[in-house]
């Protein structure tokens, strides 16, 4: 379907590196205790991706269970407002409410293939945790989800969903008590449980093979969108966009367009209170080359290489690292990465709701906000946005931000809203 050639020019190479110039992004900086398992996972995954039976089963699950392919939708009222043609890839309509279900079904099928009986996962916003709990319930696997204590509080609804699905949610109170610490804790679990447990990693980061494997399970987003946009509009978009935390939805969208040299690719990182403040998660924009969670990539870090705590209103983007292939694409100049502040994202969330009747996730609202900026710079352009998730989980944050509970404030009229 796609002309993209990941594994070829874009990588990774056989050692799990995404190369740009003299930098080898990615790789595998992990305890020896996990190396044999990562080798086996790489072998099983490679074998599965060449096995028509596995691919058919994956495709069937996505189609019959997850609601894939998701719609490509022309947002006409938003387009009118923006002065450009805005197309939305509606991943928010997938089962469990985000693109995450694609990755999780792929990894859960691999876990079954490897004879594992238990899945563990980390989660930030809770979307990956819910997706993992869903796949575990569907396939009859045990499930434990690590979630930063701060995130369990701001995403209480998703904690309840995971519990209802039969998963154990473990609140992590070490470090900054957010996504990065949940990953640390999940790795610690995995070192001790690897014999029967698969680590269902939630983003296209971490040690090889996760960045490539998660990308390939998510790349249907872009592969579908590329076909849909050609069928519906007869031409490729001018610009393709997505929000970037770890970067699974973004790499899933971008991969199909990497070889389309005329298509501009832009990722939007969480700018938090602003990149001029210390409170943001704009890893590529403001980070430096380092190693975090097993991969060489851009990292928010201090002079001594200690990870700096990130901030974003959206738990799913609140991560001080980023998938290594995004670092590669940024370094090569194939994609740009720009920050979007909390306030810009919340304004876009309200605007999309008012113009299109779609309440998206705050993560995805970053992509909408950034795309509105691009629209202003490129009037008349066709911009394809990956609307990666829906906003049900974010209602608590929205109520607080817009002051929705205290009065009948109109969020459309109060940019920035009540904090």
């Amino acid at each position, binding site marked *: 379907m796609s002309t993209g050639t990941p594994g070829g020019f874009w990588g990774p190479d056989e050692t799990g590196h995404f190369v740009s110039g003299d930098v080898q992004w990615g790789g595998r900086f992990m*305890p020896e205790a996990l190396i044999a398992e990562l080798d086996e996972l790489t072998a099983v995954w490679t074998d599965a991706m060449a096995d028509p039976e596995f691919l058919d089963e994956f495709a069937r699950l996505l189609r019959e269970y997850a609601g894939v392919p998701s719609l490509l939708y022309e947002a006409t009222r938003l387009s009118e407002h923006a002065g450009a043609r805005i197309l939305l890839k509606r991943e928010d309509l997938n089962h469990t409410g985000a693109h995450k279900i694609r990755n999780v079904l792929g990894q859960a099928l691999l876990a079954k293939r490897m004879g594992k009986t238990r899945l563990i996962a980390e989660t930030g916003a809770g979307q990956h945790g819910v997706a993992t709990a869903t796949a575990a319930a569907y396939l009859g696997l045990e499930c434990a989800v690590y979630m930063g204590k701060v995130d369990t509080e701001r995403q209480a609804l998703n904690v309840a969903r995971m519990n209802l699905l039969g998963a154990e949610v473990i609140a992590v109170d070490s*470090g900054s008590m957010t996504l990065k610490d949940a990953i640390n804790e999940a790795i610690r679990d995995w070192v001790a449980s690897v014999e029967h447990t698969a680590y269902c990693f939630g983003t296209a980061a971490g040690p090889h093979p996760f960045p490539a494997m998660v990308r390939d399970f998510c790349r249907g987003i872009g592969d579908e969108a590329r076909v849909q946009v050609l069928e519906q509009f007869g031409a490729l978009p001018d610009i393709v966009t997505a929000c970037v935390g770890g970067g699974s939805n973004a790499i899933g969208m971008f991969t199909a367009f990497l070889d389309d040299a005329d298509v501009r690719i832009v990722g939007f990182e969480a700018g938090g209170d602003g990149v001029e403040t210390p409170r943001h998660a704009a890893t590529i924009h403001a980070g430096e080359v380092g*190693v975090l969670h097993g991969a060489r990539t851009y990292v928010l*870090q201090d002079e001594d290489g200690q990870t700096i705590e990130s901030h974003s209103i959206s738990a799913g983007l609140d991560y001080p690292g980023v998938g290594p292939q995004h670092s590669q694409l940024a370094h090569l100049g194939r994609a740009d990465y720009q920050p979007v502040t909390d306030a810009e994202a919340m304004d876009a969330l309200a605007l999309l709701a008012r113009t299109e009747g779609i309440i998206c996730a705050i993560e995805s609202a970053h992509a909408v906000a950034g795309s509105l900026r691009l629209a202003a710079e490129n009037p008349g352009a066709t911009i394809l946005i990956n609307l990666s998730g829906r906003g049900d989980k974010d209602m608590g944050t929205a109520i607080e931000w817009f002051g929705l509970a205290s009065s009948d404030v109109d969020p459309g009229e109060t940019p920035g809203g009540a904090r």
Partner: protein
Amino acid sequence: MTASSTAAFATARAEGRAALVGYLPAGFPDVPGSIEAMKTMVDAGCDVIEIGLPYSDPVMDGPTIQAAAQQALEGGVRTQDVLRAVEAVAATGTPTLIMTYWNPVERYGVERFARDLANAGGAGLITPDLTPDSGGAWIAAADAHDLDKVFLVAPSSTDARLEMTTRACRGFVYATAVMGVTGARASTSDLAGPLVARTKATVAGWGGDLPVGVGLGVSNGDQAAEVAGYADAVIVGSAFVRPLLDAGSDRAAGLAALRALTEDLARGVRAG
């Protein structure tokens, strides 16, 4: 340079016993306090000291070492402080290594780190999240400065990886006796003996002479004696951190407990 841990292992071997390797993070409870604690461990019978470089994301550490490292970071410990601690402890004549996650070394500059560590009299590095197949830059820098390269092997390591890893080591090889993070355990693992045997057979197979240390879980003299029965070194971490955590601000009590524990473990490695 003669800072390598090799000499300490040779001495222990000549005495017909295992060596005792003790770990504490630098900067816990503060930089001078950690130096004093490590000198106490040297004085009470540790043959080799591992100084932990506190890191924000220590994926191989359990709650005890996490808590100490967190306290050190909150106290503002810097990489330079860790190198100063190495200098102070190595001055006792006891081989002193740094145990560190990889990012702080890469950030400091691999060659610069190796040079400054050698200049401080340090013996080398133990690298829990860097395997030789990802460690080309460190291996080159360590070789240039004659530093120990201590990589880890695990019960899950394949035979091929055991050979690759032991061939890349200098000083000793660190056998992680359990599949899990650091932390004292009630009983030592039944995976340790077979792992040490496999590792020794591998080293003999390529004609090497590399001591095998066993770490993760040892907390008293009896356990140390058991491990000393089959390993060249007993590596103790969390158990040394625990009395200092428990003593809190009563530093004299913490050091007294640390001394008593070290003596118990030193007896253990001589009984094995």
